[in-house]
């Protein structure tokens, strides 16, 4: 069978790739995609731990379902912000979003 550590390694790699996307990309939609990758890595860990350590208790899956809800909420509000910013500034580059700078 596949050892648990393989899943954890894949999740770690996915998380790091997402982190790179969040930090390095200029387009805010691409940054959001990086966040989605990171959330998926978390979910992979949660489900893998549920399966290998506590399959009788559903905590791992419940947490993962909550992460789904949070991810959907985050994508909805985040993308709405990006669209709103685009309307005001005609840009989606995160560095140029300095509305709070007065």
């Amino acid at each position, binding site marked *: 069978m596949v050892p648990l550590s393989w899943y954890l390694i894949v999740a770690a*790699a996915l998380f790091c*790739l997402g982190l790179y996307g969040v930090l390095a990309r200029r387009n805010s939609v691409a940054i959001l995609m990086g966040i989605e990758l990171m959330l998926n890595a978390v979910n992979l860990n949660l489900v893998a731990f549920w399966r290998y350590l506590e399959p009788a208790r559903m905590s791992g899956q419940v947490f993962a379902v909550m992460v789904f809800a949070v991810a959907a909420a985050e994508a909805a509000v985040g993308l709405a912000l990006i669209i709103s910013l685009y309307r005001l500034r005609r840009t989606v580059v995160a560095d140029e979003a300095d509305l709070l700078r007065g």
Partner: protein
Amino acid sequence: MTIPQVIFVVIAAVVLVSAVRVVASRNIVHAALWLILSLFGVAALFAVLEAGFMAVVQVVIYVGAIATLIIFAIMLTRREMREGGLQTHRWWPLPALLAMALFAGLAWLLGSLPGTGATPPALAGDDSVLLLGQALLSPEHYVLPFEVASVLLLAALVGAIVIAGDSRK
């Protein structure tokens, strides 16, 4: 390698390669399509883990809902960020180094952890969706998060409608 291991490696390769394309593609629409493939791969991993509910929910929510939303947002804001052009910051090697260092640290940590190479115990005979429903609904477990999730999504809907609709006036 046994057959399950081969299947796992193939799916994991799909997930990671398409994740690399997500963060490296110059064309933002292509990045979104690679994201969809990567999320499909994660759903397949859930299926391999015998978490069928998580696998289908992953496809319904991520591929069906969030990816649609992302593609719509790209279409609404395209113009200059379409393709070509600089997609990353000038100092992109810095986050790359950071991510690699984090991965190295995590890999070292996972290697040193005891008992992570165990084979999984047998699943409880019961239907896992039933168990999940019972966990979500029973007051001594997660009924509060269940209702709070509803409120969270309500707040997200109201907030996003207000934000996305404000500049039309």
